[in-house]
């Protein structure tokens, strides 16, 4: 059947409101398919026009005037207009907002509807990446009329309308015949939730599903690659995988110790051992595919001897013992075992504890009760977290905070690029964390399926351009 597609996803969305939860699965199903924002990410990560046809930015960079598309209707038939934008943005930044990325809207001073298709957003201060922010899944436009049961019946403006949700099993979307733009090629799309890697493998092999977004077991990819029925798409994600270090904890408050840890790590071994070769080494908290990326992996080359020397210099000639808390994803669990072995080589013993996410959040993230941990930070352009002194790295550097403040009000591209490079260098040279690799997005798709996104500039399975060949 060439008008339908079934896509496998690892996780099921908890509910269907992208504006009040962090779960990537919500965006994977709904972003751009059902909900759209003023701007939207292209497959390459560029920020393009979305529901806003065009926009004007005032000289001082404080006022954005969005020109909205006309003739757009929500799936329930109500028309889309400036009041919906005002409602959505006001809702997201309200006092009692439960938007997981509320920070995206923190800079907004006011939102006004100028007329039915014009919205004026005033910022508190100039903001370099405001349009980028508006492209996030958390900034999509929702309608007041349908907000009450958005969590089970999402109503957006996208090329697909929400069809049916068999909880625990699948979500089906159907083509929106009244779509304002180019209609989708597919009549319907089904997302199936398969968390078990082996089940994913079987479902793919049995051709029960046509594509698996972010296939969970890299060890199987070689097999898919060898099979003419499938294509493996290996792309980029925004996920910087780091060995996070508790910067305030003894002995990590000593930069030499942090450096020693970083130098004890053989990134390629981790990429090979944990990810079966998928992933790009990084030297700072920045995505390699970004134009402003600079390669800083040389700051911490793999050199156990030097690492040992550094430790001795810092007063730990015999090493020390610390904790390594690992959340569930296999990059963390497998990576953790490799890192533990590598650290052991320089005399650092780690007590590994495997935690579930909720425990990890409680202990490591909010309780700062950890020495080392491994996490992939999948939000795009999130180097700003290093400016948050209360963040779980416990990294408190006034210079860096000033740098980020500057960056957030800077709108000149060249200057921004400069600042971004500075930021990368600072944290890299401070050895805040051990920078491991950029998580790869590996999707397996049926060889006859076209238009599937290779990269993941945001967590989205955008099906608007997907079609079958023949």
């Amino acid at each position, binding site marked *: 059947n060439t008008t339908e597609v079934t896509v496998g996803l690892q996780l099921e969305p908890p509910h269907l409101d992208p504006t009040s939860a962090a779960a990537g699965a919500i965006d994977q199903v709904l972003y751009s398919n059902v909900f759209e924002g003023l701007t939207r990410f292209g497959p390459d990560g560029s920020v393009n026009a979305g529901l806003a046809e065009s926009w004007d930015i005032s000289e001082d960079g404080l006022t954005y005037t969005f020109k909205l598309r006309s003739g757009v209707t929500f799936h329930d038939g109500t028309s889309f207009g400036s009041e919906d934008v005002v409602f959505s943005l006001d809702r997201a930044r309200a006092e009692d907002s439960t938007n997981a990325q509320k920070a995206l809207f923190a800079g907004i001073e006011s939102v006004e509807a100028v007329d039915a298709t014009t919205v004026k957003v005033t910022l508190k201060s100039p903001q370099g990446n405001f349009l980028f922010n508006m492209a996030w899944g958390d900034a999509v436009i929702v309608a007041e009329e349908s907000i009450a049961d958005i969590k089970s019946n999402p109503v957006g403006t996208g090329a697909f309308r929400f069809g049916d949700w068999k909880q625990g099993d699948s979500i089906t979307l159907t083509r929106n015949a009244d779509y304002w733009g180019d209609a989708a090629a597919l009549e319907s799309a089904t997302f199936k939730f398969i968390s078990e*890697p082996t089940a994913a493998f079987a479902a793919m092999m049995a051709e029960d599903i046509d594509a698996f977004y972010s296939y969970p077991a890299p060890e199987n990819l070689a097999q898919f690659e060898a099979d003419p029925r499938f294509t493996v798409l290996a792309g980029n994600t925004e996920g910087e995988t780091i060995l996070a270090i508790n910067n305030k904890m003894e002995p990590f408050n000593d930069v030499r110790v942090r450096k020693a840890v970083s130098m004890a790590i053989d990134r390629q*071994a981790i990429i090979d*051992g944990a990810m079966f070769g998928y992933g790009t080494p990084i030297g700072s908290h920045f995505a390699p595919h970004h134009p402003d990326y600079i390669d800083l992996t040389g700051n911490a080359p793999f050199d156990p001897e030097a690492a040992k020397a550094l430790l001795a210099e810092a007063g730990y000639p015999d090493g020390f013992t610390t904790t390594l808390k690992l959340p569930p994803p296999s990059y963390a669990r497998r990576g953790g075992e490799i890192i533990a072995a590598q650290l052991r080589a320089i005399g650092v013993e780690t007590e590994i*504890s*495997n935690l579930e996410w909720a425990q990890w959040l409680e202990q490591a993230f909010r309780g700062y009760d950890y020495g080392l941990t491994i996490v992939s930070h999948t939000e795009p352009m999130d180097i700003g977290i290093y400016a948050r002194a209360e963040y779980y790295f416990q990294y408190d550097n006034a210079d860096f905070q000033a740098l980020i403040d500057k960056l957030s009000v800077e709108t000149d591209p060249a200057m921004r690029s400069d600042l971004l490079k500075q930021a990368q260098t600072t944290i890299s040279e401070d050895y805040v964390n051990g920078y491991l690799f950029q998580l790869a997005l590996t999707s397996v798709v049926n060889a006859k399926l076209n238009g599937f996104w290779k990269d993941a500039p945001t967590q989205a399975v955008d099906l608007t351009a997907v079609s079958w060949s023949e």
Partner: protein
Amino acid sequence: MAETGFLKSAVRSRNLMLGLALTSVFAIAALVSLIWTPYDVTVLDIASKLKSPSAEHLFGTDHFGRDTFSMVMVGAQTSIAVAFIAVGIGIGLGVPLGLAAAANRGGWLDEVIMRGNDLVFAFPSLLIAIMITAVFGPSAVNAIIAIGIFNIPVFARLSRGAALPLWTREFILSARVAGKGATRISAEHILPNITNLLIVQGTIQFSLGILAEAGLSYVGLGAQPPTPSWGRMLAESQTLISIAPHLALFPGFAILLTVLGLNLAGDGLRDLLDPRIRRTGR
């Protein structure tokens, strides 16, 4: 004299001997691994990962290039210890509870014990595990406790069920005439008559225990890496089934043979303990 007779028939029991031999192979492997293994299992060698069995690596290597043979040896420690102690906890607490309930059939004690059991049994084991980790932190010891707790209602129910019809038997009346209380009767008369079932269930729970440890270490309870365990080796080899089947095969066989050994030993023991079939020599 009676004791030597028992030993003699024990030695003559083919099942018992074969079973003990099988089990001790792994017990010895576990002990030897404390002082020596062919390769160090804490050292990773990513470059030589997923090697098939060869002279160099008898059982091949895993996804981190560790020697599977050594892993199986070291894994025996955790797996056997966890399963044994957990079954021990289950039997040690569950059987007395079940016997007490049976002795009290229809009484409030029976009700309290059995409903308590139902409650424990209804809790998803994962939840018990998480609760225990929450309180005590993750470790193999806590895996033992979690699996042990889960075993309690199993043994309690089983022994209560088996004890109930026994309580209607005449030899219980004799014991009561001798002035024995419910506790003593349970220990001296009921227990020997349900050992068959307990042995069978014990070996069953043993293998389930090894597998449960794997499940628990997946969510973070259980032996923490780098300590290997058979269960976790199996769980981790899951996605590699089509590339490196040997990774599952060897720990799988280890579990199988250990449990088989225990079972044979259990069967032999069972025959030995049952006077009505003891001397048949089968």
